[in-house]
């Protein structure tokens, strides 16, 4: 299960943020509804996808803090 978009630094699926990123999403739908599941946006590839996907650009979101410490 590890190394999927969910744990990637480029992936964001906060519903409030998504409704700002996708104008009009809240006019006839919602980022807080079941239909979205937990999909979000990958800022590296600029794609909208499910958090269970994976790719070669994966960077763990805690990598920075781990290397600093």
């Amino acid at each position: 299960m590890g190394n999927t978009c969910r744990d990637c630094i480029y992936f964001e699926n906060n519903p409030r943020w998504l409704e700002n990123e996708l104008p009009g999403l809240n006019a006839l739908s919602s980022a807080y509804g079941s239909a979205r599941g937990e999909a979000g946006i990958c800022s590296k590839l600029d794609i909208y996808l499910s958090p269970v996907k994976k790719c070669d650009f994966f960077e763990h979101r805690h990598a920075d803090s781990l290397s600093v410490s």
Partner: protein
Amino acid sequence: MEEEAKKPMGWKELYLKEDWWAIYLGIGIIIAAIAAFYSGSTIIKSLGVLPPTWTDFGKLIEHFSSNFGWYGIQFAIWLIVFSISTRIIGFKQSEYLPSFVFLYILAIITFIIGAYKPLKHYGFEAPLVALLLGLLISNVFRLPKWMDTGFRVEYYIKTGIVLLGATLPFTLIIWAGPTAFLQATIISVSTCLAIFFIATKVFGLDRRFGAVLGAGGAICGVSAAIAIAGAVKAKKEHVSVTIALVTVWAIVMIFFIPFASKLLNLHPAPVGAWVGSSEFADAAGFAAAVAYGSMVGNEEPAIRAFTLMKVIGRDIWLGIWSFAFALIACLKWEKDESGTKPRPSEIWWRFPKFVLGFFVASVIITVIATGYTMQDYDKIVKPDLIKPIKNLRSWTFIFCFLSIGLTTRFRELAAAGKKPFWAFTFGVFVNVILGFLLSVVILGNYWINAVK
């Protein structure tokens, strides 16, 4: 907070998703109405207060002065339940509370305008007034963006749909559901394939984009578009363009279908089925169905046929569509990428859960109705139990219709290029024509008899 958002939500959706809160609120209202009904209390009846149809302004003032207290209590109850639930979901109450107060005041103004008899003559019922008022405010006066927090289109419409379940016999769902499913599937598959084909084969657009456009035009609008986009890994820009196209066409259809139907003098039942087959989103569809029902003075057949077609025929299959597209993307389109195979559990997680509340509400009222003769049902149950629920449903619908207008800012929508515009528009024509043929021409009488 961020850490928490990155873990799988799982069953936390029971308190983090609007769908579940719509169930809790809707079923809560129904239970309260049943308790009041059996105890002989008129409290829910009084809480469901609505401005009456009027021509004499003095009479309207009289109505408000004698019901001022009930409006106040009703407002306080809405405010409390919505603010508690939205707080748990994650909305800032410093934004939600003022926004909802504004929405409620606007809802009263909408009801007053929509109930003005001379205006009704021209077809401007409360749903259309709400939409126009909302669009005018958001596009001319520009409200601050934070106010969107209170304009929760989906939350209000889902609550309304759960309440709607209490007015729809479960036997009708069992009996007419399969026909609705068959009709909706024929139209959805045809529309989706038409858009996908035109987008990819004629205009050479990316197949993922074609899939998102097709789903947006064929299944349930923006919700389907984001479900399918997540499944096939669509570009963010493609999602934005699809949202824009769905929104613009959905708003056009809210006006087009009711006024075209009025021109053709159609019965509200087939029109409801037509709207259910051809509108792109639940909220927009309800606006169109309620508007036409109000125009012809017979709301229920339009709402019932619409609900069967849209909720039973289209919405509940969203998870399956999403899973199917994810499989196609994974097995056919991503052979050279490290895509992960979709899990069947996604069907459940993407299932529009509020539909469960709709079913439960329908079963509860059907069980209660079996204890009455047809005459007693019409004389006792309808006015004392069903009508108060319907009135409260009207409030949630108006909150929703106003919110559609208030959140639709045309200047903010992504500009669609000519190719996606025409691919989607071609699908709109396929959808509307097929929907009309099946709902009105071929199955018109079936729908009239099914939902009467």
